[in-house]
């Protein structure tokens, strides 16, 4: 009986075969937290009477960067000081979103990664077992270098065939969440495969894995392959590559099969991520703000797609377009390739790399009654700072098309 990717990674790390439902104590390779969850982790770490983490720990200033308020500036200073005293690595405002930097600089196949942020599962795109937990779990892992886990049963998501033009990884994952429901993968892992996923770049796979948690999953995973090797090699990390794939006779809780060529752009309507419909059925929805960015869709290929649609066009006069590169690396590349100029000329506004708008902390808070179409992963009531506003989720292509027309628009009109 073969192993799923989740079972394989954890078995490999433990040096013994473990299977779904087993409860194990596992070593942890990488820990992360940010200014929203890191301070509480440090409180707990002190309560545990520890000073130096047992595992590589990263602290990020990304959720409120640069600091919009004194309280948050102080919190960032606290994380920085802890790091300077040798306890961790600190990424200051401007470096980017934690999950993007983890993928660019740290994650590698076979690792076990815990983050005090629910979208830590993004690193599953590199065949790492990565999952979000609370601050206390992170502090305990900092102290002990290990955590306890229930090995999740896996739902295999098999996607076959080429994606149609203007249909993106985001549309695949929104469709999957619509099928499974917001708790359809609770306590389970989502493993993405099939020819469509094999053809995807690591950037696109990150979009899939990022949103695994929106179906309740503990993690999202993709096998590592030539794409993974290339992603790592481009960042001077070729030696981090390790090929890891599920066994052909792995036992799955369930299989979901998708035919990519028949997929349309998808939109999640307020106030739930699983409230998904194809863009053809969106109806006439005027939009006040379009946000392109986040750990879901703030990467170079996302900005490239949006710029392709916005090139030579203007943002609709009723729309604010906010664009936020996910990291300094993405920012620089988008600048060099000319995408940022296209956004600015179209009437858009570039935000510094970070999470602020998506989490409703600062930079892009909505007015009462406003509607935002965003490339982020969550549209819960109040998410973007105002419970009287509505959030629609879609791909960067749909976002750019919507920015031009001022209402939810099928990007295939721009083919």
């Amino acid at each position, binding site marked *: 009986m073969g192993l799923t990717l989740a079972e394989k990674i954890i078995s490999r790390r433990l040096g013994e075969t473990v299977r779904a439902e087993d409860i*194990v104590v596992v070593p942890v390779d990488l820990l992360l937290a940010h200014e929203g969850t890191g301070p509480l982790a440090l409180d707990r770490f002190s309560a545990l009477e520890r000073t130096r983490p047992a595992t590589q720990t990263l602290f990020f200033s990304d959720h409120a960067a640069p600091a919009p308020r004194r309280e948050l500036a102080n919190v960032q200073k606290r994380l920085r000081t802890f790091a300077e005293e040798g306890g961790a690595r600190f990424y200051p405002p401007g470096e980017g979103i934690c999950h993007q930097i983890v993928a660019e600089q740290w994650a590698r196949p076979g690792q076990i990664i815990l983050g005090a942020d629910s979208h830590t599962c993004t690193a599953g795109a590199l065949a790492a077992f990565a999952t979000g937990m*609370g601050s206390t779990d992170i502090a305990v892992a900092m102290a002990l270098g290990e955590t306890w886990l229930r090995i999740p049963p896996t739902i295999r998501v098999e996607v076959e065939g080429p994606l149609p033009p203007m249909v993106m990884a985001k549309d695949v994952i929104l469709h999957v969440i619509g099928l499974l429901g917001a708790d359809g993968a609770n306590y389970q892992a989502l493993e993405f495969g099939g020819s469509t996923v094999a053809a995807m770049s690591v950037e696109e796979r990150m979009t899939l894995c990022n949103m695994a948690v929106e179906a309740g999953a503990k993690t999202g995973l993709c096998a590592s392959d030539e794409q993974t090797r290339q992603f790592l090699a481009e960042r001077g990390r070729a030696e981090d590559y390790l090929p890891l794939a599920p066994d052909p006779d792995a036992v799955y809780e369930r299989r979901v099969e998708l035919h990519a060529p028949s997929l349309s752009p998808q939109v999640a309507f307020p106030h739930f991520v699983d409230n998904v419909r194809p863009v053809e059925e969106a109806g006439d929805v005027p939009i006040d703000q379009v946000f392109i960015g986040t750990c879901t869709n703030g990467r170079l290929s996302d900005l490239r797609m949006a710029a392709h649609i916005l090139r030579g066009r203007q943002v609709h006069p009723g729309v604010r377009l906010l664009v936020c590169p996910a990291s300094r690396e993405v920012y620089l590349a988008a600048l060099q390739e000319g995408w940022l100029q296209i956004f600015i000329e179209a009437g858009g506004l570039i935000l510094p790399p970070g999470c602020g708008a998506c989490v409703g902390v600062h930079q892009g808070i909505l007015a009462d009654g406003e509607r935002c179409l965003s490339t982020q992963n969550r549209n819960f009531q109040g998410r973007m700072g105002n419970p009287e506003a509505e959030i629609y989720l879609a791909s960067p292509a749909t976002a750019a098309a919507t920015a031009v027309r001022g209402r939810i628009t099928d990007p295939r009109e721009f083919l």
Partner: protein
Amino acid sequence: MERILRGKIWRFGDGISTDHIIPGRYYHLRGNLQALAEHALEDADPEFARSAQPGDFVVAGKNFGQGSSREHAALVLKERGIAAVIASSFARIFFRNAVNVGLMPIICDTGGFETGDEIEVDLVEGRVRNLTRNLERTFRPLPPVMRAILESGGLVPHVLRYGGFRWPDTP
């Protein structure tokens, strides 16, 4: 831990997210738990934020606590003195966070429960009795590892006490 808990309930629906429990607009208050807790669940029911009393229960439908990993979502309910959170199902991270901070999560059918009902929870027998409506529900005990953590009062006291994770049949 008391065996029998008794109190009044606050009823919430399905899919209550961590953005409902403690929204991002109060991000800057995370270092001040008491101030943060004043806003607990205010977007879902402003009356709860104003009037919930220690010993009350939060009762909800499916997938309570979905979304963010913010442990503050469990902490603000604990800070308000909530005796237990009872839901038909929980999102994974919230459930684990609740146990870690010593807030009891209970999974049982909550259909028919309404705000203001008096309930009695027997933690040993795994029973929730709605005294107002004469309803009775049963629930399964937590897995041994979570029971051990909760019995220690949360994960930090647990680790301080045992030097690591300990439960009957620890691997």
